[in-house]
């Protein structure tokens, strides 16, 4: 196995001779998307005219489908099939074997047992979408409802330790907290949130003999392929899953849903392609969500601000049959020094849709607590919030004692403070006015783990010189196509225009997909390895070819640049070599596996957020005035797409602080907000002056390219900076997110 020490050597990426690494090149697929010609899953043209499926949702939260009358629907115009729990085809048990972390239980689509409001109980396929919708309204169900646990706060008494987890203790927290001269003990609440991706879940499916082809919107290619194979009870080799373009995932599409299952089943039954898409309402009720979290923070400090005792205990919820823990306390294990520590989680099981991963699971909720608690403690101590953090900056990981791979949190804070004008902050709240607005500044730190998973990639060069990277990776709108093109072009010393990238196909060498901000490092490292292998293959081809000017040279001395392969001043274009010596093209694969000693380091990405808000004392409305973030996340591959990721995360943080929440109706178990008019994410008018910068960094313990993830770092801590700014503006400390006008107004004098 490799060691992280192998990754410190110079590479074509670190040498960056063409300057493609870090350059803000335009999106590879940008033109297709802005011209509407990138086919998303529902728009993919099937080989023959498709039929259209519509899903019917349960209006009860728990119980059984007692009966279903499908006669009227079956007789409706254009209807091809009507399925309910009583006649849906048999499905294999799924999820548990292939994807043990799946938030989805092993229940089949259209199960008779209902486990949450909005679970699908019926499915109608017709010749048109309109006919299918009209017929779906004609299916008559009877239900045997059962009592359900629906409200998180009402079921705290049932909170349990998540299976297989222990609280993490270092030192003696209770004694140290009891003896600390300065103490804080507060509870912060983050709400249930929905992913609200632009593109709903959707599938186009068709069969060719015993083989099924599905185009679907999913973040993980292999997981989706294997799950569907299990459901259909066929080998995975008979399932080809494609997901070329994805209109947002955010963790919500880490797994497949009923659209995939039922489109494939119905296409088999009908011998005709079938398209199925979720409605906006079904996206809310029948996928996953970020659960609400209650977070108790206890801090015990010396008068100089040094923490003696630190605890963060989180209570959250999941669906009864689909265990998932929002690990809201984990980030804090590596953030601030304190000799006595306690972190842990408790879980309440409810009869509502499944909780699951959503952008920066853990950090996005968790940092809303500790990063406000630090602000509160700083005020108690009469310290600047940055100074308090500086006094608790650890030399090594505060829980494990492991060295940090890189850690530039202090520079993120100090650089950000200077650029933002933090010294203009009046530490006393409610002192600054601009017209009717009360104005305040706030900051918060950001931390998010960095990961590398096993992955493969394939790359080929054709006789015309075109280099094609193929990988079972996804681009969920983050820029994956683009950075893989940059890595491949830089590794092989060719212009970007010479590189093609093909993703989202289960026939391609597998990568784990998009999630956990591991995508660029994982897929990119495999692409880099494949590129290095192609260099090697071409070097051997050239030095062994009597017609090459490199004939007889040492392959180790071969260089690549400007589209040429060369030794010293002897060179030829790559396409000339390939067309002559390997006219059928050259294809190689490469792979990456985590280094054996990767876990010897505490490895994270870091940042600091700074926010200025206005609070309207008449209405309690909070408006962002400006926001700035400084981040350290390894080598940046693409200045433009990385900035989009980071600022996109910050914008979501603004929404987390001010706008986003959903609530469960205590009688029905349904969400109150079921569409994008009612579920508020920031609108353009909410985001005025928001920007970010990256510090120079290379993390040579992370992967061969020294890059890290940026997809989730931006949201971590962002909302806390806003909440701290609200407090500074008006003196209202609201620990229950989001800070809606109703809550702010209630807290104002």
């Amino acid at each position, binding site marked *: 196995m490799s060691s992280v020490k192998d990754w410190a050597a110079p590479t074509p990426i670190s040498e960056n001779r063409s300057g493609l690494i870090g350059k803000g090149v335009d999106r590879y697929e940008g033109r297709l998307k802005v011209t509407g010609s990138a086919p998303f899953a529902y728009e993919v043209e099937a080989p023959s005219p498709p039929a259209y499926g519509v899903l019917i949702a349960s209006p009860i939260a728990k119980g059984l489908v007692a009966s279903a009358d499908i006669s009227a629907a079956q007789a409706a115009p254009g209807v091809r099939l009507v399925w309910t729990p009583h006649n849906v085809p048999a499905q294999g048990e799924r999820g548990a074997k292939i994807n043990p972390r799946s938030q989805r239980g092993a229940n089949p689509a259209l199960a008779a047992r209902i486990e949450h409001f909005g679970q699908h109980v019926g499915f109608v396929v017709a010749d048109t979408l309109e006919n299918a919708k009209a017929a779906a309204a004609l299916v008559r169900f009877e239900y045997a409802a059962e009592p359900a646990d629906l409200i998180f706060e009402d079921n705290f008494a049932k909170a349990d330790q998540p299976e297989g987890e222990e609280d993490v203790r270092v030192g003696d927290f209770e004694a140290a907290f009891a003896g600390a001269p300065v103490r804080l003990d507060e509870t912060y609440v983050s709400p249930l949130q929905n992913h609200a991706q632009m593109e709903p879940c959707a599938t186009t499916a068709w069969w060719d003999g015993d083989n099924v082809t599905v185009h679907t919107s999913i973040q993980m290619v292999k997981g989706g392929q294997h799950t569907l194979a299990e459901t259909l009870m066929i080998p995975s080799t008979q399932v080809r899953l494609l997901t070329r373009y994805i209109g947002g995932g955010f963790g919500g599409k880490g797994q497949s849903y009923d659209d995939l299952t039922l489109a494939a089943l119905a296409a088999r039954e009908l011998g005709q392609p079938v398209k199925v898409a979720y409605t906006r309402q079904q996206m809310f009720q029948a996928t996953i969500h970020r659960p609400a979290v209650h977070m108790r923070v206890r801090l015990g400090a010396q008068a100089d601000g040094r923490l003696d005792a630190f605890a963060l205990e989180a209570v959250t919820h999941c669906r009864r049959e689909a265990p998932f823990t929002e690990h809201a306390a984990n980030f804090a294990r590596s953030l601030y020094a304190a000799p006595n520590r306690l972190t842990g989680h408790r879980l309440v099981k409810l009869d509502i849709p499944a909780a699951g991963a959503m952008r920066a699971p853990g950090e996005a909720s968790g940092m809303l607590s500790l990063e406000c608690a630090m602000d509160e403690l700083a005020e108690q101590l009469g310290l600047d919030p940055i100074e308090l953090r500086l006094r608790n900056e650890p030399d090594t990981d505060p829980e494990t004692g492991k060295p940090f791979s890189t850690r530039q949190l202090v520079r993120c804070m100090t650089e950000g403070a200077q650029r933002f004008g933090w010294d203009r902050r009046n530490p006393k709240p409610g002192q600054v006015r601009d017209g009717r607005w009360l104005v305040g500044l706030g900051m918060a730190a950001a931390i998010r783990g960095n990961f590398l998973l096993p992955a493969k990639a394939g790359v080929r060069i054709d006789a015309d010189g075109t280099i094609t990277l193929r990988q079972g990776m996804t681009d969920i709108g983050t820029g994956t196509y683009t950075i893989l093109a940059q890595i491949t072009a830089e590794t092989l010393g060719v212009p970007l225009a010479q590189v093609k990238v093909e993703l989202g196909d289960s026939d391609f060498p597998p990568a784990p997909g998009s999630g956990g901000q591991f995508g660029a490092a994982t897929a990119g490292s495999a692409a880099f390895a494949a590129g290095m292998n192609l260099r090697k293959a071409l070097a051997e081809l050239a030095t062994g070819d009597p017609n090459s000017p490199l004939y007889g040279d040492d392959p180790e001395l071969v260089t690549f640049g400007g589209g040429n392969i060369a030794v010293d001043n002897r060179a030829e274009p790559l396409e000339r070599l390939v067309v002559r010596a390997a006219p059928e093209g050259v294809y190689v694969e490469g792979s990456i596996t985590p280094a054996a000693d990767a876990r010897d380091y505490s490895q994270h990405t870091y940042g600091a957020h700074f926010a200025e808000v206005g609070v309207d004392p008449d*209405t309690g409305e909070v408006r962002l005035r400006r926001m700035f973030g400084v981040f350290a996340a390894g080598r940046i591959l693409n200045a433009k797409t990385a900035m989009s990721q980071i600022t996109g995360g910050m914008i979501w943080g603004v929404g987390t602080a*001010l706008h986003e929440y959903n609530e469960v*109706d205590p009688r029905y178990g349904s969400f*109150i907000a079921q569409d994008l008019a009612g579920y508020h994410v920031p609108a353009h008018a*909410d985001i005025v002056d928001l920007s970010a910068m990256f510090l120079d960094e290379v993390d040579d313990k992370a992967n061969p390219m020294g890059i890290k993830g940026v997809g989730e770092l931006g949201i971590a801590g962002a909302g806390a900076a806003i909440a701290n700014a609200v407090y500074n503006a008006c003196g209202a400390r609201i620990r229950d997110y989001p800070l809606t*006008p109703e809550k702010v107004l209630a807290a104002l004098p």
Partner: protein
Amino acid sequence: MKLQIEQPTHLVDISRLPLAEIEDTPEGGLRLGAMTTNSQVAADPRVRARYPVLAQAILSGASGQLRNKATTAGNLLQRTRCAYFYDTTKPCNKREPGAGCAAIGGIYANTAIFGASEACVATHPSDMAVALSALDAKIETESGAGEARVLAMDGFHRLPGDTPHIETELRPAEMITAVVLPPPPPGGQIYRKARERASYAFAIGSVAVAGGKVALGAVAHKPWRAEAAELALEQGASPAEAMAAELKGARPDGHNDFKLKLMTRLGAACLTTTGAGDDQ
């Protein structure tokens, strides 16, 4: 219709009727054709100069895309609704008279504090209509038989009572042809809207002031003309006293109590800004 809440058997295309003009009236007001778009009205120089409260109200509503499509009459005739109205798995007396009201006992908070009934607690979502109420606009209609009527804005929308599915005084086969603005009243005008994000969100409370006239939004099944506040102002009350007089009649339900503080402050601020509460 997309959610199958309304499933009409026939649709009548009125998009080519010649009702998209804004004309001066002999009295010194403006006639807004029924088919004028919200964007068109808000951008009209005469509206901006003489009825800033209306331009402000329209521009605070919906989104740019919606305002380009929405018309004056269409805006007035949008359904008074709440979150449960859209969810066809829940009872709603508007969708199905007599079915019951899921919002009562629910947790949706943007409900009425004035004039709610056992049958419906929804609030009228229009911003434009609140401004039209403060401006004492008139609504011109025509029936299928060619009969013309003029209705006062304040009487056009109904309180829910036990027939919340009937939201206006418009009769079957009658349509709005224009909204007529009287000459602008003396005194300041303002529209302010509180909402949960800066754009594309319904008001959780709004106030329109035009001269001494006051209308409130997001507090009732209809744009709420604040007659008690107007009377108090005439009698020399301060802005805060005037709003307190109006809100004496409010009946919050526990979920929407915040609207009392909100409307008191927002209303007083608007009255102070326009000088409506000054001794003159």
